[in-house]
């Protein structure tokens, strides 16, 4: 970790009536890194974002942004945010909307740059309200960047974006990250988090359940899958009898195994007389790690309820 954390959540509880959206969240976000906050719906992602943006206050615990209480004006100059379900002001064109938001900040990004980021240069004189769903999201992104923020918060940014908008969007996010900006994004698109984030924080039921780089999270997944072709394919029972194999399935010329210890298994397979070829080892997809983590957590919750 370099220097003081950009954002710090200390033992945050946020209760809405009897429901706890966040239930003792401890989290520190590093400066200059892209952190993805992952979790199923209702996990508390948006609540966490709202707290650091001062849109809501914690029931207990403390949030600080650069050591300051959220909502300070000097922080507002430096934080840009893209929230969910936000429309542009009606009656204004794309250009007028961006100019309006630029006027709020001391050192705004150039209008041309914002139009380019949004990919809306051709649409700049169109009413913002008449844009397509994907274009509106891109405009919202440009609005978030109007003040040239060094901290960027993106709450489910790609929801409603088409494929083209999405890839363009991640390109810009990567460029912003490489220029040293701190980025926090929430998403439930795991492949996106995998591709763009330096660090993934998984929360479920308002608690942190996993935290690490995408590779670390994948490595923490115990099961790996291994597949191979065989000239003389053994029966599934035979494969299951191999040491460490948890699951075995034969389909066509291929056998698919799941195991904890691929190294030991490799030696056995290559030493066998099955004529093994086309060996492939895959670590668990992030998707399955994620599912396992959040399901385990849900399971615990259900048990404790009973």
């Amino acid at each position: 970790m370099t220097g003081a954390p950009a954002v710090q959540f200390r033992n945050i509880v946020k209760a809405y009536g009897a429901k706890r959206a966040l239930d003792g969240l401890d989290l520190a976000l590093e400066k200059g890194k892209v952190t993805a906050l992952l979790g199923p719906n209702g996990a508390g992602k948006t609540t966490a974002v709202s707290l650091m943006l001062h849109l809501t206050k914690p029931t207990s615990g403390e949030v600080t942004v650069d050591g300051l209480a959220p909502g300070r004006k000097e922080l507002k100059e430096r934080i840009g945010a893209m929230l969910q379900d936000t429309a542009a002001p009606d009656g204004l064109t794309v250009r007028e909307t961006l100019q309006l938001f630029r006027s709020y900040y001391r050192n705004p990004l150039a209008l041309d740059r914002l139009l380019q980021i949004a990919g809306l240069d051709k649409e700049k004189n169109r009413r913002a309200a008449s844009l397509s769903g994907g274009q509106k999201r891109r405009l919202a992104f440009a609005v978030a960047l109007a003040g040239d923020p060094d901290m960027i918060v993106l709450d489910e940014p790609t929801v409603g974006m088409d494929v083209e908008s999405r890839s363009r969007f991640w390109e810009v996010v990567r460029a912003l990250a490489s220029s040293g900006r701190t980025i926090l994004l929430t998403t439930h698109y795991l492949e996106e988090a995998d591709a763009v984030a330096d660090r993934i924080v998984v929360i479920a039921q308002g608690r942190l359940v996993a935290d690490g780089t995408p590779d670390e999270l994948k490595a923490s997944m115990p099961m790996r899958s291994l597949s191979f072709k065989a000239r003389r394919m053994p029966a599934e029972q035979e494969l299951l009898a191999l040491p460490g194999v948890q699951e075995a399935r034969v389909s066509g010329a291929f056998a698919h195994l799941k195991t904890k210890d691929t190294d030991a298994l490799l030696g056995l397979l290559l030493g066998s007389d099955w004529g093994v070829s086309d060996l492939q080892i895959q670590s668990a997809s992030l998707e399955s790690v994620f599912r396992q983590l959040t399901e385990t957590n849900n399971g615990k919750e259900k048990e404790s309820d009973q």
Partner: protein
Amino acid sequence: MRGFKAQFTAECIRIARSPFFMLFSVLMPLAFYSLFTMLNGADAKIGDVSWGGYSLMSMTAFSLIGTAAGQFGIRLSHERKDGLTRLLRLTPLSTGAWVLAKLVSHLLIHAAIIAVMFVFSALVFGTEMPAGTWVMCGLWLLIGSVPFLALGILIGTIKSTDIATAVSNVVYMGISVAGGLWMPLSSFPGWMQKAGEWLPSHAYADGAWSLLEGQPAIAGNLLLLLSYGIGFLMLSAWILNGREAG
């Protein structure tokens, strides 16, 4: 105050570009003014004043009530629903600058409406009055529109934009008719006259009528309007605070 100028300009553009603005703030009041004035005759007397002047005050007041309470309220409700209010809280724009931009932009648009109505009346129906009376009536209508902006804030607290639109239309039409803006209160049954006199719409128009008559009844009407304005603001603050806490 940075951001105020841009916010003010944007608010003016948004009001003027609203499809409701042309129709409900300009065309409809002009059409009804023309209709009533032609039916009654511009020179017909109501009390000591000509119908052409009397109805001008009524219909200008009607237009401004619709603009200030109705369209302003509906826009606020939309801004809340669209997440714009939330988004603005994240920017360095101060709440004070935002409120002031809304207020001043509305006052400018209101002044323009007054000018259009007055010029139309003078040109088309040959309405005549001393220059001072034109100015005083115009100023009264402008200042008196402020409490209706407070009513707009109250309507703007309604979460559903559909309900806000419906409430706004019922309220602004209702208080306009019941306040004697469409036909004089004297044509109503006694109990409706008594109730109508206490409506902010009546106090608003009555101030302008009294200026026409040359017997200004400003203080009482202003006090009533002010009380309503403060009441609307307090009620809005109570609703919004309750929501924040919940």
